[in-house]
């Protein structure tokens, strides 16, 4: 039983990271109707921003490095949107997809050029400050605890933001119908920029937890969690914010349990579950049913 809960905790922690990244995917998809394949690489940039800051001076507290990383990611996300995606607003979706893939290659290779291909260890001072917790016999280390708490806070804050504020309302309106939203006086471009900013900030936060859990990073670090988070977003129903949260957490839990059972098949099991869910429910767990009009 202890082992079950232990796996559950690590699954929830991994799932929280996936959920944070998946939120970025799903929000951008909901509003700009595009698959932002470069989103995973924002995580990698965020992690490098943290270790560069810490490398410059040991005296800089970890929390400042986190803030810097968030700022770097937000600026990067907004810049990418402005230069690469905005000119393609009316282009076919595949063109945008390939551009996003190009951006992803660009970020990876820039990181490769600047930081080299060898892995770098990732450590922040506040990781050790939080003492491990025991619930019964279940061990929860500091970074796992932090991941769970921060993710819950972020999810509550994001849900409130989307549902209660004017900007959140604007975002929902744009994702519902771009033209109608524009007629209502909503600045569509600014709303999309805001979405990218929020998504990138969440990716930066995810990068810290991911780095904390895996303790090292390299230029291709963002690729796999990016794909997994994308899977999570589709799993929950892409475009749906609660869907991304649910999908991310479920995916993390499934992955950890699969890893525990037969480790070399964990990825395959995650994808098999995904395929089965999508075949049974073609628009994901919480996705809206699309009614076909003739």
């Amino acid at each position: 039983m202890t082992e079950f809960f232990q796996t559950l905790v690590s699954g929830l922690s991994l799932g929280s990271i996936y959920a944070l990244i998946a939120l970025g995917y799903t929000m951008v998809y909901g509003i700009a109707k595009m698959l932002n394949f470069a989103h995973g690489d924002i995580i990698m940039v965020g992690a490098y921003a943290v270790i560069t800051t810490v490398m410059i001076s040991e005296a800089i507290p970890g929390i400042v490095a986190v803030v810097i990383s968030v700022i770097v990611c937000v600026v990067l996300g907004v810049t990418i949107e402005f230069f690469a995606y905005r000119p393609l607003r009316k282009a076919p979706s595949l063109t945008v997809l390939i551009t996003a893939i190009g951006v992803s290659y660009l970020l990876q290779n820039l990181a490769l050029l600047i930081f080299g291909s060898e892995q770098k260890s990732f450590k922040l001072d506040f990781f050790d400050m939080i003492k491990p917790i025991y619930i019964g016999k279940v061990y929860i280390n500091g970074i796992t605890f932090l991941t769970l708490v921060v993710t819950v806070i972020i999810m509550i804050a994001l849900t409130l933001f989307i549902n209660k504020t004017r900007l959140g309302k604007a975002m929902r309106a744009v994702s519902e119908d771009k033209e109608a939203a524009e007629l209502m006086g909503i600045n569509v471009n600014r709303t999309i920029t805001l979405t990218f900013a929020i998504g990138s900030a969440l990716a930066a936060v995810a990068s810290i937890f991911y780095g904390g859990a895996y303790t090292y990073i390299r230029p291709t670090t963002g690729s796999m969690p990016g794909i997994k988070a994308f899977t999570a977003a589709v799993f929950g129903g892409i475009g749906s914010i609660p869907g991304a949260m649910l999908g991310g957490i479920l995916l993390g839990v499934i992955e950890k349990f699969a890893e525990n059972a037969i480790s070399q098949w964990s990825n395959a099991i995650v994808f098999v579950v995904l395929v089965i869910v999508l075949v049974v429910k073609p628009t994901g767990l919480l996705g809206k049913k699309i009614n076909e009009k003739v």
Partner: protein
Amino acid sequence: MKITENSRFFTRDRITLLIISVIFLLASLLLYTDNLSRQTTNMLIPISCYIVLAVSLNLVVGLLGELSLGHAGFMSVGLFSGCLVSIALEGVLPMAARLPLSMLIGGIFAAVVGLIVGLPALRLRGDYLAIVTLACGEIIKDIINNLKITGGALGLNTLPIYSKPVELLPFAIVLVFLTVIIAMNLKHSRHGRAITAIRDNRIAAEASGINVTYYKLLVFVIAAFFAGMAGVLYGHSYSNVKSVLFDYNMSIEILVIVVLGGMGSVRGSVIAAILLRALPEALRAVADIRMLLYSVLLIAIMLLNASPKFAELRGRLSVRNLIQFFKDRRKQRSSADGKEAN
């Protein structure tokens, strides 16, 4: 329209075949007279495989209009099944019989998997289908990576069936021509029109009595079949193959070729496959930043292609327009001469 197309000798398809013939003729002339550098020689077979992969993926993406991110998975199914057959028959059959046979078997295995992957495609649309094909590709990769018969994580030892580009090139040429001709004929046939009808408006196509299920599966199966055949050829040109190479990144690479070449255009896929595979080699001099350049070029091309100003410029400078321009000038001159005579 139909009549003029038929009456012209140089139809679009014939020009495409001509281009491919010239390229292969040049390549084989250089290869068999020993005038090709080692690097270029080693690129011939992979490039041919990529042409086949791109043309077959183009059937799914361009013709059927469904996004597939698992093409490398089909390729690896064909590669491993076909190469295992080839290894078993090594010494039993001469290469001229062994390779086509193993390619056929690899293709059939891939087609069966394509059928299985195509089944959920009947229920899913757009990005949901994309992620399912990606997932299937990853599942295939993991399965092959964990099977004993395929050598597991160490990869399959294909040294016994390894062949030099000199021996493989004729097979590669036949495979490319076969794929291109079948793709073109499919596109122009009754079936091709049914498939494009499904792409453009599924509901209208269904209402017109087109069997959507049948055609969707058909395209998936054909594409997987050719990907599998290309995989077997690919496997013969290396002495060891690992399944982890055929992950979603490779599928994306093929997709990039298809999109850059132009959706639904066979010729575009062929040219883009050659250029994109040769580009990293051409940029070898600037090895450190070649992938960087590649990504910048990719973004630039996509942005340029989408900008209306560039499209206008390109339209004005197209060969057809230039010919038309000179024709018009001659016509004007002759009519002006006629007026003077009057």
